[in-house]
């Protein structure tokens, strides 16, 4: 339920191919000097080091972790520890659960957001501006507010420890609606819709044959952002999935940290496993995700 994503403004180009012509890059005419590279290198190390060190710590045993200086390089125990963490925290089940939850949420959000975003971007109807204001306003409501009644609802429906309790509240994304609206305003020419209309296409046909194809790049970016967000969601799954069974990865990993003599390297192995899938996604689609976030950023 992280709400820290930003409302987007019109894309200049389709995401996935975000590469603006160098000359048009405002402020980008100055070449970076050595100090700039030094600062960037430091920040890059700072960003990546804790992740790398998670793997290093997971590969060492606890005696080694309780020594000075701390280990800076890999030991030999990484795969053993990963295996133990995998079975101890029941991560296999957790992975299936989380993939299912994040997948269903991401796909639903993308489809609903595209359809609603299209209506807000291209159709005229009464109350449109007021409704759009409500959509933007909902981005301001903190998730803590909804946690208590949702918990009561879940208790009443007897959904504790069931995945639908996690999925249903995560299907609303005001951000998604806004994101798709901003994209479609620019990416979808009015003439295309009008032409289809003249040919007698119904609204649903317009959506299926024109809007979805035109929105595909933005849908992919939104889908990835929402997948990352749902995968990493902590507060709500932590509250509803505690008793027994059906943990998400985050809940399972957090559970490893409890106990008075926690096995540190085991915790690190769990943390690594919980993050690894998303890091792989990032390594592959990082450029597109960066483009999507930048495209979604506020301009002017």
């Amino acid at each position, binding site marked *: 339920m992280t709400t820290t994503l930003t409302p987007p403004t019109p894309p200049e180009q389709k995401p996935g191919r975000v590469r603006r012509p160098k000359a048009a890059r405002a402020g980008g005419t100055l070449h970076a000097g050595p100090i700039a590279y030094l600062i960037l290198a430091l920040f890059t190390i700072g960003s990546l080091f*804790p992740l790398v060190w998670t793997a290093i710590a997971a590969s060492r045993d606890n005696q080694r972790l309780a020594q000075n200086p701390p280990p800076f390089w890999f030991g030999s125990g990484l795969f053993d520890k990963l295996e133990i963490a995998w079975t101890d925290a029941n991560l296999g089940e957790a992975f299936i659960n989380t993939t299912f939850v994040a997948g269903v949420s991401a796909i639903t959000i993308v489809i609903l957001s595209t359809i609603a975003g299209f209506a807000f971007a291209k159709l005229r109807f009464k109350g449109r501006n007021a409704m759009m204001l409500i959509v933007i306003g909902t981005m301001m409501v903190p998730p803590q507010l909804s946690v208590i009644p949702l918990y009561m609802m879940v208790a009443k429906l007897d959904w504790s420890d069931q995945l639908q309790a996690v999925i249903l509240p995560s299907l609303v994304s005001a951000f998604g609606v806004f994101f798709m609206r901003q994209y479609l305003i620019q990416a979808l020419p009015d003439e295309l819709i009008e032409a289809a209309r003249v040919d007698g296409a119904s609204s649903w046909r317009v959506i299926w044959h024109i809007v979805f194809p035109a929105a595909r790049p933005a849908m992919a970016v939104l889908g990835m952002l929402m997948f990352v967000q749902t995968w990493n969601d902590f507060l709500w799954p932590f509250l509803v999935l505690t008793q027994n069974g059906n943990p998400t990865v985050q809940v399972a990993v957090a559970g490893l940290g409890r106990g008075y003599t926690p096995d540190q390297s085991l915790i690190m192995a769990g943390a690594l496993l919980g993050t690894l899938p998303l890091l792989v996604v990032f390594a592959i689609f990082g450029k597109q995700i960066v483009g999507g976030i930048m495209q979604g950023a506020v301009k002017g």
Partner: protein
Amino acid sequence: MTTGHETAAAPPAKEGGAAPARPPAGPSDDERRRARLSRRWQRDVRWSPYAFVSPFFLLFLAFGLFPLIYTGWASLHAVELTAPTDMSWVGLRNYTRIFDDDFFWNAAKNTLTIGIISTVPQLLMAMGLAHILNYKLRASTFYRVAMLAPYATSIAAASLVFVLLFGRDYGMINWALNFVGIDNIDWQNDKWASQIAVSTIVIWRWTGYNALIYLAAMQAIPQDLYESAALDGANRWQQFFHVTLPSLRPTILFTVVVSTIGASQLFGEPLLFDANKGASGGAQHQFQTLGLYLYEQGWVNQHLGRASAIAWTMFLILIVIGIVNYVISRRLRASS
């Protein structure tokens, strides 16, 4: 898409429109079919927008608006976690109870200080990073992806790693500090140190993300502004202060609001920073945030009504912050 097209696209199929040519037969099957299609078409144009936006609003009603109001309602009742459906009216007593509780004020203060020491450095660093990333760079995509990697890391994983890095006896951070002659710091138990440590997790996760947002806004600033500033003799710093910063004002304001909301809801990081103390946020509640306090009241002490009152108090505080932000931004706009 304008409504003018309804008539342009629909054939002139009004009943009787073509009828005089064939008086005895009335409108032909074909014409009736067209009339029907046209009516359906108009209905479609008129109502389908509502159909398209309704899933969002239905879900929002169920999982956004209803909870908001219900939490307000529950905050006026005594409700226990064990029997969440049994509610008895207590008026504002939940609110007076939490306002009388020292731990509430402690949590509010911690939320504020952690919020400041996580948000301010984070946004300043993000701004500096964005400025550098806006230069012509080799491998610029690599830096952007690398800086965003923490965003892909979950709260749980990040918190647990930082617990180890901030370890008192064998943590890497204290080990590094020893080199510059600083003695071991008890990052979990010392008040300021623990708050700084929790903030570090937040800063680590969000700086790159905010840098990208600033970078996007910087790239939208027209180049001529810099050129004319350069012609007027402005150096790089002056260009940054007189061109870049003013152009970024709406973006800065936005990131401040979003970070403020994020900071006010801080939960996972302090919860896991001392997993054994859990909801109390450290042995002396030294880093218990309002989010943790809410969790402690509702799920540890099982007073859901009181937890609701905390939730609504947080909401009201956010509204006040929102209004203050709005007023400041209007002032700034008026003054420029």
